[in-house]
């Protein structure tokens, strides 16, 4: 009984941590530009696929991972420079549609450059499951959880202790005022895309040994990450983390105790319920708007 609960919890937390990392990417770009970057899922895909590619070239795993992250960050910069920045004066909705275009382009390009098959990345430290209280967890899940914690702490320090981080936060609150204070908001936007690509690729690499990777892997993960970000309150990094874990755990619990057929439905119902009572999300607070 307890073992079963623990098993569902392990499953939920592992998946939830990935949703959280993807959700974080959404939050960061939203903060800097109020754009919802629907190419976020493609960053996840690129991280995994590029790692497979570099390992295929015979590189050792750490080098392959490092290069894959670098490539994805460069692509992230590219999306901002070539797709979003030229249209930066366009309405937000236009920019969001541009990111959808970028996402379709990246997925198509990946299919042409690589292939349409699915691939696996070896687990970082073996495939032997660890048994805790009758439930089993893969070492890779621990990697995911550990990395998520480290990333959250690093991001917290970055946004609160460094000038660059503070500049991003300032831009998110009031772009005009930030610009008047001498912050280059265009660089901030560029950096936020790079940072999102970084997080996305890390998520993609971490999950690849568990979920495998293929050019379409980003579609669903991107959608779930977006839900996590909305649930937590768009633009709230901590909210995205909490949102991801809630979505992941509720999915696993529903599949385990109710019916797996309702798994996605329950997760989305929680999101609807939260947004109904707290339109700004769990961590959105009650901002008042001055007229």
């Amino acid at each position, binding site marked *: 009984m307890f073992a*079963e609960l623990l*098993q*569902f919890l*392990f*499953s*939920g937390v*592992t*998946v939830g941590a*990935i949703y959280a990392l993807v959700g974080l990417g959404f939050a960061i770009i939203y903060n800097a530009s109020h754009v919802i970057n629907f190419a976020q899922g493609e960053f996840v895909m690129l991280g995994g696929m590029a790692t497979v590619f570099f390992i295929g070239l015979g590189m050792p795993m750490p080098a392959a991972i490092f290069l894959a992250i670098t490539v994805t960050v460069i692509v992230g910069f590219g999306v901002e420079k070539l797709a979003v920045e030229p249209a930066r004066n366009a309405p937000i909705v236009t920019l969001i549609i541009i990111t959808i275009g970028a996402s379709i382009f990246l997925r198509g390009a990946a*299919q042409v450059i690589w*292939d*349409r*098959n*699915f*691939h*696996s990345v*070896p*687990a970082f430290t073996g*495939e032997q*499951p660890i048994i805790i209280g009758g439930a*089993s967890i*893969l070492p890779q899940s621990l990697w995911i959880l550990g990395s998520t914690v480290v990333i959250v702490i690093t991001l917290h320090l970055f946004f609160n202790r460094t000038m660059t981080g503070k500049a991003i936060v300032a831009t998110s609150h009031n772009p005009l005022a930030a610009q008047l204070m001498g912050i280059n908001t265009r660089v901030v936007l560029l950096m936020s895309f790079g940072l999102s690509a970084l997080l996305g690729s890390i998520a993609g690499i971490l*999950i690849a*040994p*568990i*979920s*495998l990777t*293929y050019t*379409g*892997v980003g*579609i*669903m*993960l991107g959608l779930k990450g977006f839900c996590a970000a909305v649930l937590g309150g768009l633009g709230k990094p901590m909210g995205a983390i909490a949102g991801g874990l809630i979505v992941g755990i509720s*999915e*696993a*619990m529903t*599949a*385990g105790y109710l*019916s*797996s*057929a309702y*798994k*996605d439905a329950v997760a989305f119902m929680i999101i609807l319920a939260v947004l109904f009572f707290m339109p700004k999300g769990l961590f959105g607070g009650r901002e008042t708007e001055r007229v």
Partner: protein
Amino acid sequence: MNSLFKQAGLTALGAIMVAGFATGGAQAEGTIKIGSFLAVTGGASFLGDPEKKTLEMYVDKINADGGVLGKKLELVVYDSGGSPKKAVPFAKRLINDDKVDIILAGSTTGATMAVIPIVQKAGIPFISFGGAGVIINPVKKWVFKTPHTDTLAVQKIYTDMKGRGISKIGLLSGSGGFDKSCRKNVQKLAAGAGMTLVADETHGKGDTDMTAQITKIKNAPGVQAMMYCGFGAATSIVAKNFKQLGLTIPHYQTHGSASKSFIKNAGGGAEGVRLPAAALVVVDALPATHPQKKVASAYKKMYEAKAGSEISSFGGHAYDGLMIAVEAIKRAGSTDKAAVLAEIEKTKNFVGVDGIYTMSPTDHLGLDEASFVMVQVKDGDWKMLK
């Protein structure tokens, strides 16, 4: 000046035409046109891509060997992207503008079903590569198909289970079209085969972890085996999760998992999994006496040399379709549509890569349970059972 040139041009053209008729004679009065629309790009491109390559390389080969009835084959392929909406105008174009003699097309069940009314009305033989049984059941006069149906796969699995004394199974299925159709068959055929479903779980598209569902199956009372209906990356994830949870009951999957990448990506989880597969996929594991060994090996060799990638069973559907069509046209002695239709229905003991086809006016697939071989994964490779 101008009209003079025109005059000269026309005369020359006339001369060429006369010469053409004179030398070509009755032998080369045209080509045999094969029309096709396939999901070459898009989500179902893993089906359409090998199908297109297969058609192209074998049409080239047949032409190099002298063609059919002394004529060259001409292939017209359109990319439907797997969309039924796009397939319909392509089918019309093939029939009305390209005036093809036969249609070998339809990577997906959806695209196939969408064009059936047009094909039926035009009265042109159509061999589909779509998977579901609904294409030929009930029988439609002009419509055939080459891939096995999931009904056959489930029957094969139940036969194997019965042989091992299994009667209580836990079912897990994905939510794609193939997955759902397979699940329906597992449910429908269970009673007749004396099977009881003690668990019936599903997972969503693109899910990355199925341990919750498999834990439920593990704890289902009396469960003797797990059966998975699914496709693509999920097949490997399920096998991984199965191993992670330390299950020891027999594990069955379908022909949807019959690719090397299933084994490779399951990280050892595929070991011991049993599944029904087309002879083509496990051709290396087949004994030399197997009737399909020769055909399947030849196709594998040709495809892998020309396409530069590993074979998939999907290209095999196109191979069988093309060969059945060519044989029927040869027997009919012309491309008269009614004659070709009659000859396709007379296809008997045709050894293809998917199985041995014996069609009839009431059976437009022509395969039975025997077209599958039951295999088990052993030491990272397929091993034929029995």
